[in-house]
């Protein structure tokens, strides 16, 4: 209940942001929100299913490039372009998920990384379409459908991003609390047992990978028309590494935590990079500190006080059950 209140309140506060912050800051905030959405998408895999992807940049890059190409070559309204970009990415994600879920653990992480790097390499290979190392510039933000054009202004785009972020969050939340989500939790805790209960765990893992790529590509698709250009770096493994850190620092398995992680990470990076070139060093230290001291992440720290205590079974009065040692 309290959580809901906090979320509703922060959504309202978010909507007031464009009215109070300067233009440049708004740009940063929009990018931060997009990265929050990106980090949340990875949380479906990392936090809920314990599928550690080291190639989530593939989702971002696919969403960004496919949206860029659609907006550039077809005269379609922006929302349609974004939706099509996500749809294309989801279709490409299906065979990727099929192959990656053939393995587990480190090899799963390596396979996801391999696909992201494959995307990176393909950008250079197909220069005619992708623009190679120059990327693609001049991506428009066409209005419509039905004459809707609020997203053509920066503050309007901000609201579009907030809408997508909140919508995706609510959708992901419904997914993780659904029967499907319960199976994911089972896979996270003990995959062999989950299979022995009669679940085709491979199919569930494939589904969650495709979903995570879908939401991740939405983040990429939102980035493209906002920045107006795409570059091959979007596929680069550093992006995958960063988003994984955001999930862990934010609090894996909470959805809201990775959103916060993504936002904080982006804003902090902007601030620090203006002050010092050594900002990656500071980030490294923050990451290590979180892993060692606060493994539940930012959200874990924030909600610690509100969480109900774990009920510990006492000695049964009737002596039916003896002890409850961990």
């Amino acid at each position, binding site marked *: 209940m309290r959580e809901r209140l906090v979320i509703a309140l922060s959504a309202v506060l978010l909507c007031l942001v464009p009215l109070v912050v300067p233009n440049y800051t708004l740009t940063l905030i929009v990018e931060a929100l997009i990265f929050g959405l990106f980090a949340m998408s990875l949380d479906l895999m990392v936090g809920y299913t314990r599928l550690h992807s080291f190639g989530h940049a593939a989702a971002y890059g696919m969403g960004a490039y496919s949206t860029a190409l659609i907006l550039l070559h077809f005269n379609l309204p922006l929302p349609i372009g974004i939706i099509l970009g996500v749809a294309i990415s989801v279709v490409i994600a299906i065979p990727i998920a099929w192959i990656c879920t053939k393995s587990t653990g480190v090899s799963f992480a390596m396979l996801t990384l391999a696909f992201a790097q494959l995307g990176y390499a393909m950008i250079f290979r197909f220069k005619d379409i992708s623009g190679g190392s120059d990327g693609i510039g001049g991506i428009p933000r066409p209005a419509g459908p039905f004459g809707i054009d609020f997203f053509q202004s920066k503050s309007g785009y901000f609201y579009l991003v907030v809408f997508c972020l909140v919508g995706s969050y609510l959708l992901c939340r419904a997914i993780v609390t659904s029967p*499907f989500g319960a199976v994911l939790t089972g896979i996270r805790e003990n995959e062999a047992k989950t299979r022995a209960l009669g679940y085709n765990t491979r199919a569930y893992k494939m589904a969650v990978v495709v979903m995570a790529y879908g939401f991740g590509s939405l983040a990429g698709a939102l980035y493209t028309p906002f920045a107006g250009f795409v570059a091959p770096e979007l596929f680069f493994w550093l992006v995958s590494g960063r988003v994984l850190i955001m999930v862990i620092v934010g609090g894996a398995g909470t959805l809201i935590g990775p959103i916060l992680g993504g936002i904080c990470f982006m804003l902090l990076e902007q601030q620090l990079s203006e002050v010092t070139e050594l900002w990656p060093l500071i980030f490294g230290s923050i990451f290590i500190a979180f892993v060692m001291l606060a493994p539940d992440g930012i959200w874990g720290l924030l909600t610690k006080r509100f969480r109900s205590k774990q009920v510990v079974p006492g000695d049964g009065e009737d002596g039916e059950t003896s002890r409850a040692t961990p």
Partner: protein
Amino acid sequence: MPLLECRGLTRSFGGLVAVDNVNMAIEAGEIRAVIGPNGAGKSTLFNIITGVLPVSDGQTVFAGEMITGLPVYRVVQKGIARTFQLTHLFPDLTAHENVRIAAQAQHADRWRPLAGGHVLAASRKVADEALEQMRLSRFSGVKAGMLSHGDQRLLEIGMAIAQKPRLLMLDEPTQGLSIEETDRAVQILRDMLAKGDLTVILVEHDMEVVFKLADKITVLHRGRVIADGLPDEVKANDEVQSAYLGGLE
């Protein structure tokens, strides 16, 4: 027609034949114990029946349907539930969530990512009943990993029951339990078996437990069936005496 029929089941690991041409027929409603010394192939037999391990040779027929070679989850979907020799749970989830996930596996809409409230509600109800049956209701909200070993064993059986199986396979349910815990577990199992028309295959080391629960006993020795029959017949069998029971008494 028997509910489960094993025809010449064989499984070898390299040169070692762990399960050697096992024939076994289990009628619906029967409670069958599979006994034998360590390394007799009992757990391997469980694993090949449920599809955890592939067979080297032979067939398994369940309710008139060939299940050999099917993946585990398909075998389980046909109505076979099992527990493991080493407790297999979701330690970070509550006892209730553990059983709920098990119960959900039998629901047609178990896969739903959205609009699955009815699945959760139905599974919750089955979970409540299964926990009640295992007398674990008051630990419903406790993380499974925090329960005592005895309660964890019972919880795993509760999960198997929540799957509403036609055949329940228990792999040493009293393994590692104290005498009091064993008595309690046997009592709960007896109540459970007295109620329903469950068919059970039970692997067990504790002969007292076996003779209290089983209708029929199959004795494995070095992967082979050396005796098969009513408890008294098996007890009187010379080969069994020398291979197994004799060693204990």
